[in-house]
């Protein structure tokens, strides 16, 4: 069994040690231009051990290159350089295998190469893992590009067993069993697979037999056994017992010993159970174990529940919640849904994926096809490999003679460590010893490829003889060592770039729980506490800029950034966003929220950011027509009678993919600077959904803009080491270019928080709150939720709201059509706006009596808000999104097509920019009130590399009440893999700490990403 997060704290340390050692070893080695020496991590005394190693040195290389790659991509330069990445894969015997793959290669390529190296045919049980920034183990998706899966850090991987065959004797080849044994030994030694003393003895004895052969006191000596590891806490007594048993195995072949080993291991209750930390609906710490037969629920060591795959109808996740929908029992009438809380969103997603894969592998005959959808909010993720049934069939066809393979190497492994950094404290020393001892590898840089020459090529050569089709010659089996390339001393640029860096770092080192979790919680908590609703939001995606226009583009970005900062000054109350948004039908709070709620099947969700609401499946009577689009996630593929449907509420990748784009041609105004990037029109509703999800999921993607690795590099250099600068000539350039040239993905997150410290409470807010509760209170007979899910009430809200939304949509659709693909003028906005308010009214009329009260409340407030835009002057919004009221149904596909077309036409790097605004419901209390007398105004701006904070404080007196209004704009500009959610959350948190009464009224996310052409031209 494998533990997810529990292990981390301890796991970090060994890794760190190792890195340190390696770094030292490396430091002694000559530096090649490709390979700049980095600061030694050891020296730095970092507080973030986990991150320290993450930044791959390779990144330098690559990012460096990518700064110039812009050119190579342009049609003018026909020759394309294939970027090669060096990957280090830790194999099951503890050795490292270094190989090069193209940067854009898919996971499958790497996996196949490793399997080939291992001479493994029955490979479907295995997979490749990569540890993320949080040191969590993630399975590489073979169907996705490596570079998209490795956000930061070196390209270090581990080869592991992914699906533990319940009956290993059914494996066809001994070599497969051998690798399975190696994995299990590691599971045992690391404590992931707990066993009794007796079992440790037995397993240990078979290990010894398979590795060392027959007991032979003369050859082996009396202490031979203490070199091997059998248990997390190995005692002399255990070793003696192992020896005793070993003596009785004379004549047993290694393969037989392994069969015996597996026969015993497979009976262990935690065999093949992948554990994930979670909390149940009552907040009790539990573990969720995913295994071949289903999902197991543990509390401490006790199994408290179990859901076999056939009992599970659906699995889904939303934010950090993971849900399973259970088939009704014999005596039950309804399906029930059970929710669990994972430490963070990523953990929830990881668990969901693992479940999807296990279910498919063990339960289905063939994998399900991934859902096809245009505009996807949900995950397209499906297990794409072979199922167990298929792999068994396939392996029965294996006809090669049993391959010869070397078993002895695992001795080192046994001494050294747990393979994937699992927590074994005792291993530290050996680990260090290990890495220190073999500094034999030399690194030679040639061209783009880094070769590692090792004296220990033997093993590989042997294999090469057996199989003709061997790896590319450059690849060398590398013993546990240190290729300088691998360790990376760089600090995470994410961190350094972040204003919140310090704090995040602290977080990490202080507490072991991941920072994402903390920030997320705090974010949510606050937002919730203050009852902030997202009133409107919009997403704009701009598709842009061929290389030649890069500079201009860059200007835009900075302008954009500036405008974000500036708008506040000119119109304290409303930004252009708000104005534009206000004109959209979605503007009214009432109609706004619904979309957020409706989209997901599993969802419930309310105003974004409110953590409390998790609901499960509104069984509303939603018109399917509308739903289809939004409920991307709920796509329930049921596979046979036992099938379960998998759904996610959101997947980052998908989210990105699903972004709507429109190509330049479409926008008539593309000339002017602002609209140079084509405007994206998305139905507000869709946008809102996305946004709300985004917010609630706190997903990196949302706010993501990956950028220039260059940028990262540049910043890093300045932040971290002078040495780097010296070595890398291109660096300075890179710095300059960071945004303009390479900007692959650039992010700027604008976080605008407004505080109204007043004596007069916001009326609107109050009203809304009331309404909300009313809605919640309304009972809905349609629900069939498990009673243990606390937030059921929310479902109703979502149902009701969804109905309303539909209506609104219907109303607005006509307008939308006529305006499509146009640049909106203010006038248009206004018209539209008026219409939208009409709609709102209609809504209230059409809503049922039970809703009437609340509806009225809503309408009144929404009307108020919709008035605002008229009063306000519309400012410089051009850079931002232009919301289009077109229903997503029509817009969605169209846009997607457009993008495709665009990609084909221009073999150029496309950059997509996405801007999302989150806004709370209580727009400005002062918007509709008498502006009052301005007493004082003050603007403070502070800037760091990645963040710009503008604080705008105004004091006004209105009708005898003085109001202090603090507006804080925080622009986070980041690249690559900064966790923007985290940054955002952090920013909000900070802001709130400073101003406890503050509420977040608006969050704008502007995202720019490189659109990777599918054709693969680089």
């Amino acid at each position, binding site marked *: 069994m494998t533990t997810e997060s529990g292990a981390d704290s301890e796991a970090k340390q060994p890794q760190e040690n190792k890195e340190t050692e390696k770094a030292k070893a490396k430091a002694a080695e000559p530096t090649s231009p490709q390979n700049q020496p980095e600061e030694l991590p050891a020296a730095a005394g970092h507080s973030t051990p986990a991150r320290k190693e993450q930044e791959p040195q390779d990144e330098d290389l690559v990012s460096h290159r990518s700064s110039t790659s812009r050119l190579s991509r342009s049609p003018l330069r026909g020759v394309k350089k294939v970027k090669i990445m060096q990957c280090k894969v830790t194999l099951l015997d503890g050795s490292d295998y270094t190989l090069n793959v193209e940067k854009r290669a898919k996971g499958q390529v790497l996996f196949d190469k490793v399997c080939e190296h291992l001479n493994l045919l029955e490979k479907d049980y295995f997979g490749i893992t990569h540890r993320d920034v949080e040191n969590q183990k993630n399975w590489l998706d073979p169907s996705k590009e490596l570079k998209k899966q490795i956000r930061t850090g070196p390209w270090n991987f581990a080869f592991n067993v992914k699906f533990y065959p319940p009956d290993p004797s059914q494996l066809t080849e001994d070599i497969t069993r051998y690798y399975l044994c190696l994995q299990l030994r590691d599971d045992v030694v690391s404590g992931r697979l707990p066993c009794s003393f*007796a079992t440790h003895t037995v397993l240990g004895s078979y290990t010894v037999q398979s590795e060392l052969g027959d007991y032979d006191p003369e050859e082996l000596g009396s202490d031979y056994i203490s070199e091997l590891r059998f248990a997390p806490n190995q005692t002399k007594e255990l070793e003696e017992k192992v020896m005793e048993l070993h003596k009785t195995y004379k004549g047993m072949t290694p393969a037989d010993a392994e069969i015996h080993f597996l026969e015993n291991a497979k009976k262990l209750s935690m065999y093949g159970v992948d554990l994930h930390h979670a909390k149940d609906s009552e907040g009790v710490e539990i573990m969720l174990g995913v295994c071949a037969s289903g999902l197991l629920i543990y509390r401490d*060591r*006790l199994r408290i529940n179990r859901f076999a795959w056939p009992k599970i109808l659906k699995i889904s996740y939303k934010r950090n919640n993971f849900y399973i929908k259970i088939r009704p029992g014999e005596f039950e009438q309804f399906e029930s849904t059970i929710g669990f809380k994972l430490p963070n969103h990523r953990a929830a997603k990881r668990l969901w994926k693992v479940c999807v894969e296990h279910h498919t592998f063990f339960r289905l005959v063939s994998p399900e096809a991934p859902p096809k959808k245009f505009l996807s909010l949900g995950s397209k993720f499906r297990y794409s490999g072979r199922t167990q049934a298929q792999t068994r069939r396939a392996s029965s066809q294996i006809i090669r003679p049993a391959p010869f393979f070397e078993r002895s190497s695992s001795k080192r492994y046994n001494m050294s460590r747990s393979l994937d950094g699992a927590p074994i404290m005792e291993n530290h020393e050996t680990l260090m010893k290990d890495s220190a001892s073999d500094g034999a590898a030399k690194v030679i840089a040639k061209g783009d490829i880094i070769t590692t020459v090792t004296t220990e090529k033997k093993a590989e050569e042997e294999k090469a003889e057996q199989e003709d089709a061997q790896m590319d010659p450059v690849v060398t089996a590398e013993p546990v060592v240190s290729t300088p390339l691998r360790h990376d001393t760089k600090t995470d640029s994410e961190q350094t770039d972040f204003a919140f860096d310090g704090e995040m770092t602290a977080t990490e080192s202080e507490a072991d729980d991941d920072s994402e979790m903390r920030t997320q919680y705090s974010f949510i908590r606050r937002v919730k506490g203050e009852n902030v609703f997202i009133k409107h939001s919009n997403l704009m995606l701009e598709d842009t800029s061929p290389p030649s226009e890069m500079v201009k583009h860059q200007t835009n970005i900075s302008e954009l950034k500036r405008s974000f900062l500036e708008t506040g000054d000119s119109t304290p109350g409303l930004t252009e966003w708000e104005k534009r948004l206000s004109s959209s039908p979605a503007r009214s709070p009432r109609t706004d929220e619904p979309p957020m709620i409706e989209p997901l099947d599993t969802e419930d969700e309310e105003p974004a950011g409110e953590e409390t609401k998790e609901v499960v499946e509104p069984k509303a009577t939603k018109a399917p027509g509308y739903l289809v689009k939004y409920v991307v996630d709920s796509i329930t593929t049921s596979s046979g009678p036992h099938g379960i449907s998998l759904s996610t509420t959101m997947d980052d990748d998908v989210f990105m993919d699903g972004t709507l784009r429109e190509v330049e041609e479409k926008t008539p105004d593309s000339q002017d600077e602002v609209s140079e990037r084509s405007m994206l029109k998305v139905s507000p509703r869709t946008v809102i959904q996305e946004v709300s999800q985004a917010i609630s999921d706190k997903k990196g993607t949302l706010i993501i803009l990956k950028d220039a690795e260059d940028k990262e590099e540049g910043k890093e250099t300045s932040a971290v080491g002078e040495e780097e600068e010296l070595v890398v000539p291109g660096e300075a350039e890179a710095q300059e270019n960071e945004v303009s040239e390479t900007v692959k993905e650039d992010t700027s997150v604008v976080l605008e928080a407004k505080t109204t410290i007043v004596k007069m409470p916001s009326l609107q807010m109050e009203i809304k709150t009331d309404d909300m509760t009313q809605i919640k209170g309304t009972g809905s007979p349609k629900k069939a939720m498990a009673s243990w899910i606390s937030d059921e009430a929310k479902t109703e809200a979502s149902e009701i709201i969804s109905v309303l939304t539909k209506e609104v949509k219907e109303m607005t659709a006509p307008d939308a059509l006529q305006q499509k693909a146009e640049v909106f003028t203010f006038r248009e906005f206004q018209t539209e706006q008026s219409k939208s308010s009409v709609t709102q009214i209609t809504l209230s009329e059409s809503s049922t009596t039970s809703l009437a009260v609340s509806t009225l409340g809503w309408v009144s407030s929404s009307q108020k808000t919709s008035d605002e835009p008229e009063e306000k002057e519309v400012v410089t919004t051009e850079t931002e999104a232009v919301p289009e009221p077109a229903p997503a149904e029509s817009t969605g596909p169209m846009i997607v097509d457009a993008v495709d077309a665009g990609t084909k036409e221009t073999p150029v790097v496309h950059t997509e920019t996405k801007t999302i605004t989150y806004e709370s419901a209580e727009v400005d209390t002062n918007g509709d009130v008498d502006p009052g007398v301005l007493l004082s105004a003050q603007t403070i701006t502070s800037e760091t590399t990645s963040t710009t904070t503008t604080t705008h404080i105004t004091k006004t007196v209105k009708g005898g009440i003085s109001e202090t209004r603090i507006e804080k704009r925080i622009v986070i500009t980041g690249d690559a893999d900064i966790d923007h959610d985290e940054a955002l959350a952090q920013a909000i948190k900070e802001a709130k700490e400073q101003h406890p009464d503050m509420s977040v009224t608006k969050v704008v996310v502007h995202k720019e990403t490189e659109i990777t052409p599918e054709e693969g031209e680089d």
Partner: protein
Amino acid sequence: MANMCPYGSFTHAVVRGIPETFGKPVGDGHENGEISVDLAKAQRQFGCLTGALRQKVGLQLIEIPPDPELPESWRIEDVAVIQGDTALITRPFKQQRRSEAEAVRRVMSELNLTVVEMGTEEGDSGGATLEGSDVLFTGREFFVGISSHTNRRGAEVLADTFRDFAVSTVPVCGGARLKNICSMGGPDTIIISSSDGAKKTLRMMEQLTDHHYEVLTVPEESAANCVYIKGSSSRDFLLHRPADECPDSVSAFQKLQDYTLLPTACSEPSKLGASLSSLCLLINRKHTYF
């Protein structure tokens, strides 16, 4: 697992005689106040049981002499949970019973079992209580009944002791102890009473297990507790309550193919809430590794 051979192979049985204080209130106790038990009959029944175990089944019998100071010490099942070569000495719910463990501990050590203690009252397992009659070991996994005598912490200790196995907790509905409502009737067979509470517990067990068990339902609760032992020549023995104690259930036992049924009276102990299995600890000293 090394010790995971099909349920039922035992070589030894440990029992403890019925003291003359049998049925007498414990300490200042009040609970058994009105129950009148026949000491001589109880001792006879005890004799029948041990006789069956030794002579019919062929186990080596170790009899710990009764201790009048410990009126409940004959319920030896409660004080230890044995699987493979490990014996977990439990912490019974009643304070007065905890000294019963001493003699049992000694025997376990003599049999070369690894003796595991539940730990001190203060430590990690503080507050943990566990009695063997709430523990159903099926050969593949443990079910621990959370009852008035056994709590979750006790179950955790058990899980920590027998790490090879899944340890699932189930509520004990109907019946004071898990083993009062169910027992093993073969390597893959669970005998369970047909009461609603027992059915609930069974459903929970079925939900929690990865394995499939045959279920033999008996109409009387007293019949649900049997002792199954696979004898030396792979013969299946089942000690069960005789027809006069559970008239409706005997026919159910007949359904067990090729079993040697050994009706064993247990009316006196059962008046005190005990049953057949309460009276003995079964041990397998022949480990088979494969």
